[in-house]
């Protein structure tokens, strides 16, 4: 049974259709990536999975249970955690407070402390800056904080929305390495990316999203060598 399953999902903004009848499956322990151009509906899909955007039709199953109508904050309790597009670091909170926000729904103090250590191991930079206010950090640091914060929920599936956006090349490498590391530690990852090269080479499976519909799917390797994907997303002709 898949951990996360989107079945024929459509999402509208008013009368504008952002996502049209897409189906995506994420198995436990996988990295699944969703690639596509700006405005293809990638972030909308992520928002729908997290529950901050309602579906106009279709179903979302998590761990076999229908969560289509479940309130967003309760989905976090179930084990769905997201580092949103644009990072969403709370600008007026310190690194520590931001991380604590990630563990907002949890009460197990020991588990929280253990996860904080895990986050600091993955991102030593955050440990150095624990009292710095989020708003004053660089883009790369904010991205680390956003991912670390999402991990603080101890999620079963981690949703990452364009973690490489706006980052310097050395940071992009580092972030992708860490995503693989997080996955190796046992967390399932659903990754939305415009950086198709990196995303496809790290992902087990991938979907290509074009103007709200899925046009291709396969393993990361398959899509990396797919001619049309190469032409459209990898800058190879």
């Amino acid at each position, binding site marked *: 049974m898949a951990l996360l399953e989107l079945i024929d999902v459509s999402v509208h903004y008013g009368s504008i259709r952002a996502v049209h009848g897409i189906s995506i499956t994420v198995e436990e322990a996988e990295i699944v990536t969703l690639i596509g151009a700006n405005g293809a509906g990638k972030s909308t899909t992520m928002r729908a999975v997290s529950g901050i955007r309602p579906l106009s039709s279709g179903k979302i199953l998590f761990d076999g249970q229908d969560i289509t109508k479940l309130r967003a*904050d309760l989905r976090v309790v179930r084990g769905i955690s997201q580092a949103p597009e644009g990072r969403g670091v709370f600008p*007026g909170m310190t690194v520590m407070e931001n991380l604590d926000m*990630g563990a907002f729904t949890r009460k197990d103090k020991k588990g929280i402390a253990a996860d904080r250590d895990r986050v600091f191991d993955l991102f030593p930079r955050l440990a150095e800056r624990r009292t710095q206010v989020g708003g004053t950090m660089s883009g790369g640091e904010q991205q680390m904080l956003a991912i670390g914060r999402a991990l603080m929920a101890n999620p079963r599936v981690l949703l990452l929305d364009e973690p490489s956006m706006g980052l310097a090349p050395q940071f992009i490498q580092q972030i992708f390495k860490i995503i693989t590391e997080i996955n190796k530690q046992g967390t399932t990852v659903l990754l939305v990316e415009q950086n198709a090269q990196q995303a496809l080479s790290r992902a087990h499976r991938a979907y290509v999203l074009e103007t709200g519909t899925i046009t291709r799917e396969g393993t990361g390797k398959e899509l990396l060598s797919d001619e049309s994907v190469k032409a459209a997303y990898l800058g190879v002709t």
Partner: protein
Amino acid sequence: MHHLITYLADAPWITFNTGAFSDQFWASTFDGLTYGSIYALVAMGYTLVYGVLQLINFAHSEVFIVGVYATVFALNAMGFGPSPVYPPMVVLIIDLLVAMVAAMIASGLTALILERVAYRPLRKRNAPRLVFLITAIGASFTIQYLIFVWRGGSNAEPATIMFVPDPVFEVFSTIIDSQQLTIFIAAIVLMVVTDQFINRTKFGRGIRAVAQDPDTATLMGVNKERVIMLTFVIGGVLAGAAALFYLMKVPQGASFNGGFVLGIKAFAAAVLGGIGNIRGALLGGLLLGVVSNYGVTLLGNSSWTDVVAFVVLVVVLMVRPTGLLGESLGKARV
């Protein structure tokens, strides 16, 4: 322009009483701080709701006046009335605390119901901001006239005297009385507790998260609706406390539209300090209280108090459009 200045300078209706001002400087300051702490308590409600919803809750003045009525009824039930009674100190303190709790409950509930009935349905429909504002004004009038009908007209309730102020000590050869001291200390304690609640507790962090980024707060598992409810209740409870202090100062303060002017001033205090900023509300409230009192002493006529207060507000906003401490609840770190 020149004519206007000459006219104003010669105007018989405006006189600067600098002698009285220097004589009564400290007295005006201390009394201003007393009023100011009441403004500040009410200002907290405006600022908290604005911080979380970017909504100016114009009906907050009625949340406050409901608390004033609750104070009157609670005190009357305990035997307080138009002429002072002199219960033993301990009994008096307990009575006042009971009245305060009654007012806090009444105002807190009013704020909660207001949120449920007036604002939540609009949020569900994604109504534009202007609609919220009009609704707030409508809610303000609705509560006013509900009170009007209930009390059978516009007459204020008979005075309720809690205690006769005694001198406690003297600073700069100015007497500080027990009333000023009670109000100032209690108000500051309540505001510090609120500030610490917002900045140090988990629920407080949830409130700040929603203020800074509501969608991301939801992604962290914060129940936004619950945070909004809590914010209204906290604002209401503080307004309830303010109601007791207000009635101490103004024993005939319970009238159907008695919250209006105080509400406007508290709102001005919130804007002066930087709306959305809790410490700004405190600073703005105290400053507004002191400055409007200076206006009264300097111009020798209490009709000027509001004029002076709003002139100061306008001048400050010209220099610092975001208020003295600027930034919103969200962004202000400490």
